[in-house]
């Protein structure tokens, strides 16, 4: 059994990352390195208004005064910020007026990834904003969405077309000064998605952004902003992949969510950036700040994430529960294999009265990887009757990996009820043998056990994503039992 499992582990860990191809497209790039000139270059490329440039420069100057955080439970060689290309856009002959004008090479790339930019063929009814390197190349179903007043477009377009909304909300949840990477992002972000759901509208389809890093030596710094007005609802999906490259690439995104009274935002991520090879060479540094604010009473924000990629993941999708009776949820499956490192979790900040939060974190570690849950539940002085339930489970495959849990609880109101449960388990040979005896081979058995372990989180995903995510879990880990 040991030997057989080792064999399967070997096979799995040597199996190719399916999305590792490079598309040969001409790119329009900024000179390598970061300076005020780079910031001005990006802003000029995007034809931005002066106020946006000033915001960027302010963020850049602030960034210069900051230091990279050292507290995450991850280790990596120092990043040379002067060695990164901060802007890379696929060269298109003309700006596409319609989806039909998109460069065929680009279209092929997305076809290969299983993402159709062709609205007619798209039966599942998901609107997609496709972002490659630094720019958004296409947004589908725009017209249909605009009929109900939903704005769904690239961030560049939003800055041009909806400056009043951008001025009001961009940086309102995650200010540029929040941390080292948000300051960097605010200075050099090049694109991303903007989504606005007007009062009383239930968004008629799932919205999604698909991120693809293609060019070498570039960083991707995108920015997502979702605003849901009173009594509106939106479900948003985010997916991402990158080519296999020997060097590490930095991805430092910022996502902001604003939910007004009785509004609900459901944000799901399936993160599958290139994780590096089995010796830990290459892979994406995924340093992301995601935060939502339940600004209105009875509002709700729910984060669901399935994290399987990246050589290092460092992110804490959080909710500020400002409105009374508001609800924050965080459902997470983080998988690490080989030399991957993940330090992820959430912050639930209870400010309003009768606020509720729920945290379900499932960490799966294999190979020589390290997987940490880090979470904060903060109940402010005036947040009476706050409720939190946290559950953090870890599953170990093999005996060379590590699982760590760092729960922080700060309660300043004595009516709060905060519960925390944690378990750590190993896939047992008994479980595998039991499955084998029923005619189920070891690979299928491991996939079955893993999906069982992660079920509570997977159930939160929209159907189209859940199937993909299940397969992804199986591919990332199947058979890696020792």
């Amino acid at each position, binding site marked *: *059994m*040991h030997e057989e499992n080792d064999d399967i582990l070997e096979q799995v860990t040597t199996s190719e990352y399916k999305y590792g191809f490079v598309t040969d497209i001409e790119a329009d790039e900024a000179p390598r390195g970061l300076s005020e000139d780079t910031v001005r270059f990006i802003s000029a490329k995007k034809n931005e208004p002066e106020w946006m440039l000033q915001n960027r420069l302010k963020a850049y100057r602030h960034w210069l005064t900051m230091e990279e955080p050292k507290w995450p439970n991850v280790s990596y060689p120092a990043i040379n910020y002067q060695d990164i290309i901060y802007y890379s856009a696929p060269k298109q002959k003309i700006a596409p007026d319609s989806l039909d004008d998109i460069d065929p090479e680009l279209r092929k790339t997305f076809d290969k990834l299983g993402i159709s930019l062709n609205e007619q063929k798209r039966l599942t009814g998901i609107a997609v904003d496709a972002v490659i390197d630094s720019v958004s190349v296409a947004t589908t179903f725009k017209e249909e969405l605009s009929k109900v007043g939903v704005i769904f477009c690239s961030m560049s377009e939003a800055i041009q077309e909806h400056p009043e909304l951008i001025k009001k909300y961009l940086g309102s949840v995650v200010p540029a000064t929040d941390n080292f990477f948000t300051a960097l992002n605010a200075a050099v972000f090049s694109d991303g998605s903007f989504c606005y759901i007007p009062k009383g509208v239930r968004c008629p389809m799932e919205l999604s952004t698909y991120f693809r890093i293609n060019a070498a030596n570039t960083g991707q710094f995108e920015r997502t902003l979702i605003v849901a007005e009173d009594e509106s609802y939106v479900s948003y999906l985010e997916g991402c992949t990158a080519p296999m490259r020997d060097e590490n690439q930095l991805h430092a995104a910022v996502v902001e969510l604003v939910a007004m009274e009785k509004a609900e935002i459901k944000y799901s991520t399936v993160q599958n950036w290139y994780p590096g090879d089995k010796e830990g060479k290459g892979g994406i540094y995924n340093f992301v700040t995601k935060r939502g604010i339940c600004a209105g009473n009875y509002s709700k924000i729910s984060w669901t994430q399935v994290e399987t990629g990246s050589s290092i993941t460092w992110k804490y999708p959080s909710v500020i529960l400002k409105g009374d009776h508001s609800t924050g949820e965080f459902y997470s499956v983080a998988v690490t294999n080989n030399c991957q490192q993940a330090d992820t979790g959430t912050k639930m900040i209870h400010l309003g009265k009768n606020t509720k939060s729920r945290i379900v974190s499932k960490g799966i570690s294999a190979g020589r990887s390290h997987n940490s849950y880090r979470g904060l539940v903060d109940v402010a002085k005036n947040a009476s009757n706050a409720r939190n339930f946290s559950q953090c489970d870890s599953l170990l495959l093999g005996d060379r990996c590590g699982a760590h849990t760092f729960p922080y609880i700060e309660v300043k109101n004595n009516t709060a009820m905060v519960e925390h449960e944690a378990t750590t388990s190993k896939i*047992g040979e*008994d*479980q595998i*043998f*039991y*499955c*084998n*005896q*029923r*005619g*189920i*081979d*070891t690979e*299928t058995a491991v996939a*079955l*056990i893993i*999906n*069982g*372990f*992660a*079920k*509570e989180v997977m159930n939160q995903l929209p159907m189209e994503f859940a199937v993909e995510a299940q397969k992804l879990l199986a591919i990332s880990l199947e058979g890696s039992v020792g």
Partner: protein
Amino acid sequence: MLKIVNLQARIEEKEILKGINLEIKPGEVHAIMGPNGSGKSTLASVLAGREDYEVTGGSVNFLGKDLLELSPEDRAKEGLFLAFQYPVEIPGVSTTNFIKTAVNEKRKYQGLEPLDAAQFLKIMKEKMKLVEIDQSLLSRSLNEGFSGGEKKRNEIFQMAMLEPKLAILDETDSGLDIDALRIVANGVNQLRSKDKAFLVVTHYQRLLDYIVPDFVHVLYNGRIVRSGTKELALELEEKGYDFIKAEVEKELA
């Protein structure tokens, strides 16, 4: 159907099976009895292919194939079933989903199309009656939080669903009260047929009141030391294992 010749096996350095000989024909029910530590459960595990045990000698032929050459999952797909003494729990995997996976893996092996949900449910409904198992139990995670009796009934239910040619029941009676024992035994009896065989491993005679064996074998110290009909089980019940031990020691001396 099953022919075991001079089977020897050990775990780490400890020799447990010291030359087992046993032949089982289609339609027969064989009981293996013996005191604790005699090697009963080891025999069941070795036949199912648990690799904690190392086979050091002998051969096992199952339906014309060298059983010891097959992986545990292929043994299962060839028609060998083990009802576990301690069924394991798999959190988050519903019992129904688990059994459906198992049934369809076997069908794939036989070159058959997988059952769709409707076909599967129909068969499941029929077999549920056999072991008086409740639908609600089957939608729960596999064996998680099941009582001892529920776990054993679930084993027999899986056996009914997988329709093995040879079923090995490893101390299925342990931890069962008399009602559960009757239900489990009933399930087994209804599955008896002229082309199926059973190997019932038990410490106590009482299970054999319900599942009446054609042959009874006594395992002691890694060998089958007595074989007979169901009367042998009754004799053991009356005289205890010490009588067998004493006889065997005398023969060896």
